[in-house]
């Protein structure tokens, strides 16, 4: 959706209207730039794709129009007063008439804002209640979201799935809604979950449980990122939400429920990589289900190769990137809590071969 619906149209100027026309084309130019800027953004709050974002969008349009009208009236009056009552060279030396106030006028510009405030407040309350205070349907999907410095842990308690950084959810059909309810907390400091096209943000606060829900109706990838400053790599704690059709989601769930592959027949490098992985400190922090690796400090790697990105979003999941990441995470994401393990080239190669097989 494009925020500014009207596209610029060419209007050739002539005669004394030239100035007006050139002014108009400048204005159109600015709007055109703005329009393009908005249209190409995958994180535009004015392009909602789920109910919470839609209701915030509806409210924002109302608030924007009211504030625009107030601005035009007050700024217009101010501008008029400044021009009309400017000092002129023809003025006499006399001071203007001194007016000390007027109860009637002051009462009117107290009462009118109060009426606007009451109207806005009631509308806002309706949207708050519609988002925060509606019952959760039985068909809802539950996901537990745990924020970490600087990545996201996703647990699906009813499905027995644990994954990281790329959230997969089913789309919700308006006639048979399957919204996703996120139960959120943090393992360390405060974070905030913000995918602008799906919903406003909700903070993930340690020692506290927050909830929010999303119900995208179109399949697709929705982007966002952590919105609460959480330390050195706050900037690269990106969010990727994959909304999938019921069939696609079911097949993703089936895949994720399987334990990790352990027999790599005909792939000696991957077999050796598995051994190296299990005999290094990797397993202290990472889980690969069905193996000795049960660490929980870092992301679950059981199906690492099924993800598009590593390092919480900013790096594509290619074998070269993965190898570079394992070699020295801080060269790609300075401040990442994963240490460089000082592996030799051979070990790096085989571990990469192993991890790229974890589909």
């Amino acid at each position, binding site marked *: 959706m494009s925020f500014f619906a009207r596209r610029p149209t060419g209007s050739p100027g002539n005669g004394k209207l030239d100035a007006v026309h050139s002014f108009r084309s400048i204005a159109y130019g600015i709007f055109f*730039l703005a329009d393009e*800027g908005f249209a*190409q*953004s*995958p*994180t535009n*709050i004015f392009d909602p794709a789920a109910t*919470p974002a839609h*209701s*915030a969008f509806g409210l*924002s349009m109302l*608030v924007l129009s*009211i*504030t625009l009208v*107030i601005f035009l009236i*007050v*700024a217009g009056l*101010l501008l008029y007063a*400044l021009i009309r*009552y*400017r*000092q002129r060279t023809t003025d006499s030396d006399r001071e*203007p*008439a*001194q*007016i*000390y106030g*007027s109860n009637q*006028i*002051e009462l009117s510009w107290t009462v009118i804002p109060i009426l606007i*405030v009451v109207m806005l*407040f009631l*509308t*806002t*309350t309706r*949207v*708050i209640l519609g988002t925060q205070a509606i019952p959760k349907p039985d068909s809802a999907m539950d996901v537990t979201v745990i924020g970490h*410095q600087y990545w996201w842990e996703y647990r699906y308690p009813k499905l027995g799935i644990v994954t990281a950084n790329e959230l997969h959810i089913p789309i919700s059909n308006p006639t048979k809604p399957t919204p996703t309810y996120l139960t959120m907390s943090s393992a*360390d400091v*405060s974070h*905030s979950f*913000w995918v*602008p096209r799906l919903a*406003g*943000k909700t*903070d993930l*606060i*340690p*020692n*506290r449980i*927050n909830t929010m829900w999303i119900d995208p109706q179109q399949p697709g990838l929705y982007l*966002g*990122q952590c919105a*609460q*400053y959480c*330390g*050195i790599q*706050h*900037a690269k704690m990106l969010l990727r939400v994959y909304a999938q059709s019921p069939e696609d989601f079911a097949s993703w769930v089936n895949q994720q429920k399987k334990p990790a592959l352990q027999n790599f027949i005909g792939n000696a490098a991957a077999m050796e990589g598995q051994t190296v992985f299990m005999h290094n400190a990797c397993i202290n922090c990472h889980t690969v289900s069905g193996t000795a690796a049960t660490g929980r400090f870092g992301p679950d790697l059981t199906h690492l190769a099924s993800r598009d990105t590593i390092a919480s979003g900013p790096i594509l999941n290619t074998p070269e990137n993965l190898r570079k990441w394992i070699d020295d995470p801080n060269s790609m994401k*300075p401040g990442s809590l994963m240490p460089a393990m000082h592996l030799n080239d051979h070990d790096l190669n085989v571990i990469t071969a192993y991890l790229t097989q974890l589909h």
Partner: protein
Amino acid sequence: MTPTPVMEAIDETLEPQRGQPPLSVIYEWVTTVDHKKIGLMYIAYALIFLLIGGIEAMLIRIQLWIPNNHFVSPQVFNQLFTMHGTTMVFFVGMPILFGFGNYLVPLMIGARDMAFPRLNAFSFWISAFAGLLLYFSYFGASGLYAAGSAPDVGWFAYAPLTAKVFSPGHSTDYWTLAVFLSGVGSIGTALNIVTTTLCMRCKGMTMNRMPLLVWLYLVMSCLVFVAVSPLTAAQIMLTLDRYVGAHFFDTQAGGSAVLWMHFFWIFGHPEVYVLVLPAFAFVNEIVPVFSRKAIFGYPAMVAASVGIGFISLSVWAHHMFTVGMGAAGNTFFVFATMVISVPTGIKIFNWLATIWGGKVIFAVPMMFCVAFLFQFLIAGLTGIMLSAAPFDWQLSASYFVVAHFHYVLVGSILFAIFAAFYYWYPKVTGRMMSDTLGKWHFWLFLIGFHLTFDFMHVPGMLGMPRRIYTYEAGRGWEMWNLIVGIGAIFQAIGLLCFVYNLFWSYFQGKEAGHDPWDAWTLEWATPSPPPAYNFAIEPTVNSRRPLWDLKHPEDPDSDYEG
């Protein structure tokens, strides 16, 4: 009672002579308890920090010039925005406004000094020390074992990022202690202003006749008591957490991260009004003088100021709409926040009515005030957007919020401060500031301000969170960040014109005389610069505009004031 005529200074030999010749000037300033000298030191100290904070802002904008930039490291960037925010709020905003208050309040109420001159000096020096302490972290924060490191926890330092485990070393302690000490200084000065205002007014100056500036400083100082105290307490609690194992904010031991947010914002929101009320104060004095009319609706202006003071204490959790307060809590704070727009609106309308029917003179102070009026209007309207909680869930912690509060802090408060500089500089130095340089400053800064902060709203609406040291390409943020950066350059050049003007005019400016603006309040009834004792004879006033009465004996204000 008759109005006081303007008195010339009594013979110079009445000035106290002390100190040894070579160091006498420094000795004089360090030991002074004169409210005017302390006020000027506050202002000078704040201007130095304004330049430092401005340089930090420029470095931030260079880093964000293009996506995935490597101009500074993530850690340095995080330190830059922490230091920028802390510096601008605690070591620029507060001291510069206290400086003006210190200088002007006694003069405007016809007093010879503040109520507690020594407390005044103490408050200044402790605040000045706090600023130095904050910046000493660059050298000393990691102790003897490593190079120093500045705090990098953000200016509101959310727990538990400040806990020992997430913030090792001493950088956070420098932040905590600096903010704590500046709070002590602020409370001292606030106490002084309240006492001075209540007890030291000259003959005839009832509360009902105080200049609006004095009223606003009174409300602002009362707010400082209520707002700064919880912040100071929270700093002590945080230090106990870090060093003796208290667990107020230690979430891993059952403490509460949200408790810190409440402590911080019960300070943080009234703090916005602590900063903006003095800005209103300047506008209240300058707009009438350059419109040649009395302020419209003085009683309503006083009532609105006091009302803002009270309501501002009940809106803090609108900074916390995203922490999961629940529908009831959110609804309450939506209401309180929206209500504050009513007294604020009254102020804007009354300024408009003051201009209406006047003869507006566009001198440099008035130009800054006019820009203030439009920019404050916009800042208020984006504030209404943020007060609608579901809209705020999208906008909070994004660049939209950063743009909004810079519209308040720069577009409103800093513009009013510039207006105040041009307006009272002749009183302080006896010379006018250069008009040409002033206009260059105004236009460059205005263009820069709008390039930077108008366009900064957009990336926020396109999903750009604040406090990120770099951003991904392809989110639609590149162009906006570029424009914002270009605006920063204009602002920097404008600011340099201003600083140059301050020095140039001190030596080369036109002689001002005691009342260059044909103004109406008492500070213009004494020579420029005022003598140490301010007034040779204690003034007597009959109305809110004693010098109007003096200049228009045929039609004095006292006939019209109830």
